[in-house]
């Protein structure tokens, strides 16, 4: 017995993994393997356990805005490195890396479109770009879309899916974006413009403590992590493990901090309903 016929074709392990990764994805909620295409059709919500996967800004817009109505604004704003921040990795390197990774120029997309036929202004944060943290460009675009909403009298919908809070690499300039964006929401208030804020996983730190928590109506996605201090920081401070479900959307709802927790598959319908009721 010198030559034994193989019963299977050999694949190099590398190829195997790649193919698997593209077609199948493991759910972080229930651990089941999901067919990627099916998951995407289901707005990235696990059909088994309703776990909400994070969305990119592009996917988010597609899921909420009526087809063909979205017009992006101020795509031309580009990030600078005002502190010339040098760390283990410089800010410039980090920016390049995340631009390449996401195909985006920054963590925010703003524009106009229609939801259920109602024209709105829209601001979407993308957690895939430096954790969706707020630097100068995020602050500037958010303030511009607020001012634009006032100018043309459109309700503003903001989706905050960015955990990083204020962007460390821009130092106090990024901290001041909290003051800047909150002041712009103040302008909306004075002008009588409806502002709906959707909190998605994760909404923390400086983003939470400024425009995200200032919605006239605040909606969160199930199980989204929402809060001010990061769970690890709190654990280090109090030196004990945090209770299960701490800082989740449901935790905040129970304490009266947000209006409702809405499954992503119902989100468009709920927003449309609010727009209809508030429309005069």
């Amino acid at each position, binding site marked *: 017995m010198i030559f034994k016929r193989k019963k299977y074709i050999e694949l190099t392990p590398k190829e195997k993994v790649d193919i698997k990764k593209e077609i199948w994805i493991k759910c972080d909620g229930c651990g089941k393997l999901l067919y990627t295409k099916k998951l995407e059709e289901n707005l990235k919500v696990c059909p088994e356990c309703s776990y909400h996967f994070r969305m990119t800004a592009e996917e988010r817009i597609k899921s909420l805005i009526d087809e063909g109505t979205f017009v992006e604004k101020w795509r031309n704003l580009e*990030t600078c490195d005002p502190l010339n921040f040098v760390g283990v990795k410089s800010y410039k390197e980090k920016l390049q890396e995340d631009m390449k990774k996401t195909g985006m120029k920054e963590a925010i997309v703003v524009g106009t479109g229609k939801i259920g036929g109602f024209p709105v202004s829209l601001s979407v944060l993308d957690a895939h770009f430096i954790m969706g943290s707020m630097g100068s460009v995020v602050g500037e675009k958010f303030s511009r879309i607020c001012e634009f909403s006032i100018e043309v009298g459109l309700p503003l919908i903001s989706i905050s899916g960015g955990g990083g809070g204020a962007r460390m690499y821009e130092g106090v300039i990024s901290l001041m974006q909290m003051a800047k964006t909150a002041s712009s929401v103040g302008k909306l208030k004075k002008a009588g413009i409806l502002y709906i804020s959707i909190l998605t996983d994760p909404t923390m730190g400086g983003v939470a403590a*400024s425009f995200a928590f200032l919605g006239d109506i605040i909606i969160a996605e199930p199980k989204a992590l929402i809060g001010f201090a990061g769970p690890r*920081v709190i654990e280090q401070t109090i030196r004990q493990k945090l209770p299960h479900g701490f800082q989740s959307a449901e935790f905040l709802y129970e304490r009266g901090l947000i209006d409702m927790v809405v499954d992503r598959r119902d989100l468009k319908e709920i927003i449309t309903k609010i727009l209809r009721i508030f429309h005069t």
Partner: protein
Amino acid sequence: MEKKYLPFEKPIEEIERKIEEIEKNKKIDPIVKNTEIVKLKQLLIEKKKEIYSNLTPWQIVQIARHPNRPHTLDYLDNIFDEYIELHGDRAFKDDPAIVSGFGKFLGMTVAFVGHQKGRETKENIDRKFGMAHPEGYRKALRIMKLAEKFTFPVVTFIDTPGAHPDIEAEERGQALSIAINLLEMSLLRTPILCIIIGEGGSGGALGIGLGDRVLMQEFSIYSVISPEGCASILWKSQNAVEEAAKALKLTSRDLLELGIIDEIIPEPLGGAHSDWEKTFEYMKSAIEKNLKELKMIKIDELIELRYKKYRKIGVFKEGEESE
């Protein structure tokens, strides 16, 4: 109050100890003693000048946190004619990390809000190290709204490592309370003067830090994250605190240059902790000057200017429109 010295103040400590020793020594001839002390005091000034004109950002962080530095209540006790502290957020409880109320400053009625740190361990625990909970921010807002009712100017004293990171703070809406303060302060129809008197720790500082003028004492700091936090996130090592302190551009000089603050309040040679009298004098004249200027501006204009002040902060490029 026991005098404490920072590691880099060692040469100052040595000279001051020597002066004390000589002063106490009864065996030395008074004339010799005098000349000796005059000489040492001269040397002390030179040493202080040498050390304090070459401080690194990390050393400035340590000065900003110095336990002998005057805190909010020290300023109230020493530069206000009189004041009354008011308590509670009218909803949950009184937060000892923030003091607030009304007082007379050079005959003028002024509202004050400030973080309050302790000096000794027990006092620090009672004051929660100056780290406020949501009820603290809500109390601050209540006092500011009351000030608005009478158009009394508001002076805020900022000195906190940050907002309190614990379970209770999150349960009661830490992010929400800070966000609401920012929005309400941007619209408050009375002048607001904010002064960083020690540590300006991120959102916890900004929660009472949005105003018409923002001043910093010379050796105070203002930062989006503590150098320790930044070092552990970006460098994954506590050994990098000095580098992080430098990278964050958190000193008064850096922030004046970046256009974030309006003015630096000078500190006496050797820092605020070394000479309270002079510190109070400089603080008093800075508050007086700024309040007088702000009172001259009509409220509607003031609020528009306040909006523009923050609206223009940010550094970005406006590339070509791709559409």
